[in-house]
C-alpha cells in the first residue's frame, strides 16, 4: 500500500479515515491490524479486498495496481474474506455455502462436495454438520464454515475482520490456530483486523491504526 488515504464521500475535504498508509504484506505471515473503534481498521480491510474503490494512493497486488484489476475476479480468486458476523447464506447449508463459493470462483475441482467436506474437516468441522443449515450451527461452527468457504478457491490472502469477536476464548484460540497454520504451513498471507490482545499476541506482525488528533 503506497500513500493510501481514504475519506467518506460525504466527509469534509480534509476529514480522512485513513491517511498516507504505507503497509506491505507478505505470504507466509500472519498480520494483525489493531486500533480503536473508528480508527479505520475495517475500512483498510475493505480497501485491500477491493470492496472499496474510491481511495487515494496505490494498492499493489503482485505488482499489479488494484484499480486496474477486475475486482470481482480478484475477490473470488485471490482474496478470501472472513467476517466477524460470518456472512453465510442462511438458506443454504454449510456444504452448499462452500460449494457456491467454488462455483463463483470457477475453481477447477473434480468433486466440489468432497473438497468442501475436506475443507470443513481441515477447520475442525465434522462431516455430519455439512448438510445442516448454517443458522443451526453455533457461532464457532459458523465461523469455521466461513473460513472453509474463504479457503475453497485456495486464495493467497485471507482477510479476517474481527473473526473471533463473537467467540469465546477457547474457540478464539482454535480459530487462531487455523489462521496460523494457513500462514505458516500453507504459505498464505493472513491479515486479521482486531482489537483483541490475544490475537495480537499470536501474530507475526502488527500494524496499529491511530486516530489523528
Amino acid at each position, binding site marked *: 500500500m503506497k500513500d493510501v488515504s481514504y475519506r467518506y464521500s460525504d466527509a469534509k475535504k480534509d476529514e480522512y479515515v485513513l491517511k498516507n498508509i504505507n503497509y506491505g504484506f507478505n505470504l507466509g505471515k500472519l498480520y494483525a491490524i489493531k486500533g480503536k473503534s473508528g480508527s479505520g481498521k475495517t475500512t483498510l480491510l475493505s480497501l485491500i479486498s477491493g*470492496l472499496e474503490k474510491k481511495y487515494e494512493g496505490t494498492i499493489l497486488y503482485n505488482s499489479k495496481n488494484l484499480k486496474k484489476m477486475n475486482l470481482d475476479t480478484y475477490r473470488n480468486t485471490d482474496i478470501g474474506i472472513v467476517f466477524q*458476523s460470518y456472512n453465510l447464506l442462511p438458506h443454504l447449508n454449510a456444504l452448499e455455502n462452500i460449494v457456491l463459493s467454488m462455483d463463483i470462483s470457477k475453481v477447477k475441482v473434480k468433486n466440489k462436495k468432497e473438497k468442501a467436506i475436506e475443507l470443513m474437516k481441515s477447520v475442525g468441522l465434522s462431516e455430519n454438520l455439512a448438510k445442516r443449515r448454517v443458522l443451526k450451527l453455533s457461532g464457532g461452527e459458523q465461523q469455521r464454515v466461513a473460513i472453509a468457504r474463504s479457503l475453497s478457491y485456495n486464495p493467497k490472502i485471507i482477510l479476517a475482520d474481527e473473526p473471533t469477536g463473537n467467540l469465546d476464548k477457547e474457540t478464539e484460540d482454535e480459530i487462531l490456530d487455523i489462521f496460523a497454520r494457513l500462514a505458516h504451513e500453507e504459505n498464505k498471507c493472513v491479515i486479521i483486523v482486531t482489537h483483541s490482545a490475544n490475537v495480537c499476541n499470536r501474530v507475526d506482525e502488527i500494524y496499529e491504526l491511530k486516530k489523528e488528533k
Partner: protein
Amino acid sequence: MYIFKNAWKSIIRNKGRNILIAIIIIVVSTSCAVSLAILKSANNIVDAYNSKNPIEASISMNREVLITKLREDNKTQEEMINSFNDIKGITEEEIINYATSDYIKDYYYTYTLGVDAKDLTEATDSLVKETTEVKTETSTSSWGSPFNGGKMPPRGGNMGGRTTSKKTTTTTTEKIFNEKAQNGAFTLVGYNSYEDMKEFVNGEYIITEGNVSEDFNSSSCVISEELSTLNKLEVGDKITVIDTNNTKKTYELTITGIYKENTESSNDMTTMFSNSANNIITNVNFIKKMLDKNTNLTENITPTFILKDKDDIEEFSKEVESKGLSEYYMVTNNIEEIEAATKSINNVKTFATTFLIITLLIGGIVLMVINMINIRERKYEIGVLRTIGMKKSKLSLQFVFELLIVCIVGLSLGAVIGSLTSVKVANKLLESEIKNTSEEYNNISKNFGIENKEPDENKEEPEVEKVNRYNFGVANINEVNSIEAVVDIKVLLELLGIGVFLTLISSLVSMISISRFSPLTILKERS
C-alpha cells in the same frame, strides 16, 4: 448452471415469498388468458363476418354529377333523357381491366338482358291500368328506375326486370315508362357461379322446387314462383325467350328450379308481384351466346370487386379513375355497412384490450413493488454474494431466473384456470354467432334447393356433399365453433410473452438495486 441451481434453491427455501408472487402471477395470467381468449373469440367472429362479407366495391351511376351536368347545360327533360341514354355502360373488358388491380382479391359480374318470351305472360299488375280511368298508370320497367336508361340495374335489389308501381299522373312520365317497357318484359340475369349469386347467398331468393343448376354452361334457368304459377310452368319445362330486336331469334331454356323472393326482402306493399317476378335466372355463358348472335342487344354488366383490404378502397377508386372510368360512374363500397355490423363485437374487443392493459399495468406494478420489498429483504444475501466475488450481471441473472421460474409456474396455473374460465366466457360470446352461422349456412343450402334432395345411394357423391363444397362466402363454422382453440398455442405463447415481459419489468428493480448496492455498506448495516 450454478446460477440456475442457486436460483432454484432460493425459490424452494423461501416458499412464502415465492408463493405470494406466484399467486399474483396466477391472478394476472388468469385475467390475461380470459382477455386474450375473448379477444381471440372476438377476432374469430369479426374474421368470420369479414369472410362472409368481404370488402366489396362496385361501380354505380354517379347521379349527382349527372344531374349537375344536365342542369348546367340547361337541357329539356327529353334532352336530359337522351343524354342519359347516350352514356355508355360498363363493358366486360373494362371490368377485367379494373380487376387486374393489385388491390383486388377477386371479382365477379352479372349480366342482365331484357328479353321477351314466347307464350309467357309477364307478372305485372298492369291490369290496374286497364280498370282505372284516371291518368294513373303502373307499368313494368326492365330496370326499375326511369333514370337508368337501361344501362345499369339498381344495386342491392334484384338484378333485372322490376314491376314498378309508381303511379304517375303526367303524360310525359307515362311515355318514359312505356319506352322502357319496350326493352322486353322479362329480364335474363346471368351468373358465373353459386358464389356470385348473392341474392341466394343472402337469402333474398329461396328455391322452393328443383335447384339452381351447377352447370354454368347449360341452357338452364330458374324462374319465380309468380311466373311459374301464372304460366303453369314446372321444373323440367322449357321456355323460349325472344330477341327484343328480332322476334325470329329465339332461345330455349330448361327450368331447373323455381324460386320465391323472400317476403322480408320484398316489402313493396303496393305491387301484386315481387320485384323479381319477371327475372329469369340463368348463367353468363347463355347470355353471351345470345349476344354473340345479335350485336343489337344491349346487355348490362354489374361488377363486384372483392378488395384485399378495406384501406385499399381509395387507391382502387383512384386506379379505376386513372384507367378511364367515366365521370358519370363512381366506385361504391360496403365498408360502412360492415363496420356498422361489427361495431358491437369491436366494442367487446376494445373492452377486452382495455381490461388486458389494465391487468398488465396493475400486475406489473404489484410485481415491481413486491420485488422491491423482496430485494430489500435480500440485501444481505446480495452483499454476501458480491463480497465473495459474484458479478453484478450474474447476480441479476439469478434474480431474473428466480422470478422467471415462479412466473412460468404461475402462468401455467393461470393458463389452466384461464382456459377453464375463458371457455365459458368465450362460449357465451360464440354461442349466438355459431347458431347464426349454422342457420345461415343451412338456409343458403336451402336457397339453392339442393338440400331438399335426398342423397342418391347409387351416386358416388351425394348432392348434399356437393353443396358443401361451396362455402357461399360463409366462414367455416368449425373454425368459429372450436372452443378448444380459445386458449390455444397462440394464446399460450402470448401469455408466455406477457410472463417474460412482467419478469423483465419487475426484474429491472432487482437489476437497478443490485447495481446500486455497495456490498460493504450492506454488510456494515447488517453488522
